[in-house]
């Protein structure tokens, strides 16, 4: 039964990694395999399947609303030239190669992950680093590593939201552990970036800024997410990094500081959309009457208990509830509109901008939406058929006490195979949660390891490596990038395994 239960996941893994299928294709086949196995071997009936599908719709919409609108906001800012302004301003601040890598490849990459994600950090930063004289290989590897720690709370919290949706646990349970694990990862990737640039020599020279920046970014992200503002956690971490990193870049400016003048007015306007986002999120989350008023409209069903032919029971209860007017997707949509109006008034748009924004957003997100839909449906069917439970029992029996060390690797595997931390969380979070429950381990810590592993693994996903390679002029040399990236990712994963085991057994 274990082999049957793991089959849908294996199908996706083999098709995406071995045959390089897109998530939209592989997810569809994974769904069909899950449906067939759950029906023939796990005794799922039509009624249970119906409730599982309806439950999945709300999970899917919860995740997709953020992904669609986050990319829309990014496109509005990019179309107005805001990302270009940031990209051209930052290299002027320092001539020191190590500091440039930290400022652009770590801090700015984290900021971009906070606001955009979807492979944007590497795509934007790799060409900038090539222009600054970095080798194309390092130009891809540095931002790939630099933004990993911001993946879970980046993309306006899409991956974290996916984990909440898949497990049914709230931010107050999941955010503290995830914030700590990802904060530690932030420091580790800062060290890794400096090491890639110049080995121990650069590390010895820049250890103070690395420590100060990591502390600032991680603390900002931790405080934001533990206040319930998880959708701007990555953004606040990245912003704190910029606030701390810019003066530090002046201090460590190197010999050939170009000292170009910064147009602060332009810089502030370019960040206006994200300013509106932060302001709206703070008002909605921290002013109770506003939150109550916007919570009046909620979409969702209450589901009855379901039982399969094999006797597996899913208890009755409400599925995912969508508070549509205070949903992160709605806040992002309003922020996108506000950003559009601000840029329009400032005259930053060229003719036909609105059409280009809508078209590029639609064409970029719709393919991945199909993949996410199939994968979530597959995961919910597996849960309702008892397949996830079978997998969890199998893992707990075979791995047992060693499981905490395995948890981050499972998250990483999910991200490599599905191309994203969000997808990994959708596929594996419920399994990790159930395994933790069976073994009597703290689910919040195991899930923090899951999402941290997912964040680290996502950068080694073939799709992201291909995007990075193409923007740095390394098409066809993806293997070379992976050969440099994978050992570092594996070392970081080993450290997270150790931290997870220590957190589970010593705390």
């Amino acid at each position, binding site marked *: 039964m274990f082999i049957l239960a793991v089959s849908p996941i294996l199908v996706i893994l083999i098709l995406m990694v071995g*045959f*390089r*299928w*897109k998530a*939209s*294709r592989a*997810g*569809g*086949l994974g*769904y*069909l395999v899950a*449906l067939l196995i759950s029906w023939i071997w796990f005794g799922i009936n*039509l*009624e249970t*399947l*119906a*409730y599982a*599908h*309806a439950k*999945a*719709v709300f999970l*899917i*919409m919860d995740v997709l609303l953020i992904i669609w609108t986050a990319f829309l906001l990014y496109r509005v800012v990019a179309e107005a030239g805001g990302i270009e302004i940031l990209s051209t301003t930052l290299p002027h601040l320092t001539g020191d190669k190590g500091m440039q890598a930290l400022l652009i490849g770590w801090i700015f990459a984290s900021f971009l992950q906070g606001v955009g994600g979807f492979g944007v950090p590497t795509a934007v930063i790799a060409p900038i680093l090539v222009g600054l004289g970095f080798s194309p290989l390092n130009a891809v590897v540095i931002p790939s590593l630099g933004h990993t720690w911001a993946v879970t709370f980046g993309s306006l919290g899409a991956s974290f939201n996916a984990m909440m949706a898949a497990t049914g646990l709230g931010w107050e349970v999941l955010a503290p552990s995830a914030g700590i694990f990802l904060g530690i990862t932030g420091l580790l990737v800062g060290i890794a970036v400096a090491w890639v640039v110049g080995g121990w020599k650069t590390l010895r020279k820049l250890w103070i800024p690395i420590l100060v920046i990591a502390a600032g970014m991680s603390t900002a992200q931790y405080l934001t997410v533990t206040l319930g503002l998880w959708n701007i956690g990555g953004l606040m971490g990245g912003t704190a990094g910029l606030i701390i990193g810019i003066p530090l870049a002046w201090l460590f400016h190197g010999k050939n500081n170009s000292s170009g003048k910064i147009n602060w007015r332009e810089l502030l306007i370019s960040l206006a959309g994200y300013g509106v986002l932060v302001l709206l999120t703070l008002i909605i989350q921290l002013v109770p009457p506003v939150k109550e008023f916007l919570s009046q409209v909620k979409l969702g*069903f209450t589901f009855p208990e379901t039982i399969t032919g094999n006797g597996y029971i899913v208890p009755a209860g409400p599925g995912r509830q969508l508070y549509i007017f205070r949903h992160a997707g709605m806040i992002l949509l309003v922020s996108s509109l506000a950003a559009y109006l601000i840029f329009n008034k400032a005259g930053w748009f060229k003719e036909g901008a609105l059409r280009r924004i809508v078209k590029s957003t*639609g*064409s970029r997100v*719709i*393919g991945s*939406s*199909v*993949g996410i*839909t*199939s994968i979530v*449906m597959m995961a919910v069917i597996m849960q309702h058929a008892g397949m996830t439970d079978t997998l969890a029992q199998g893992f707990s029996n075979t791995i047992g006490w060693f499981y905490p060390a395995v948890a981050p690797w499972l998250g990483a595997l999910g991200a490599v195979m599905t191309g994203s931390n969000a997808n990994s969380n959708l596929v594996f979070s419920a399994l990790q949660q159930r395994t933790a429950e069976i073994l009597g381990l703290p689910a919040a810590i195991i899930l923090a390891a899951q999402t941290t592993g997912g964040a680290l693994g996502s950068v080694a996903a073939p799709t992201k490596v291909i995007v990075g390679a193409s923007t740095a002029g390394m098409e066809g040399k993806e293997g070379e990038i992976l050969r440099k990236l994978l050992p570092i990712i594996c070392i970081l994963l080993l450290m997270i395994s150790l931290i997870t085991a220590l957190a589970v057994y010593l705390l």
Partner: protein
Amino acid sequence: MNKITTFLKSHPALYYLVVFLLMIIPALLLFPAAEGENQIGLIVFLGLVILANLAAVIPFNSK
């Protein structure tokens, strides 16, 4: 039908939009069908979701 298929295949975003809607809308309608114990509704809507997933698997343009 052939014209529609050819048109959709030359417009990937539109094709995926149709596939996505074919997954989401019938999946949502499965809830009232299950509540009303409407067996035909259950089979039809589930069939549509399966069909949409099959459509997602079909290759075009690129893998």
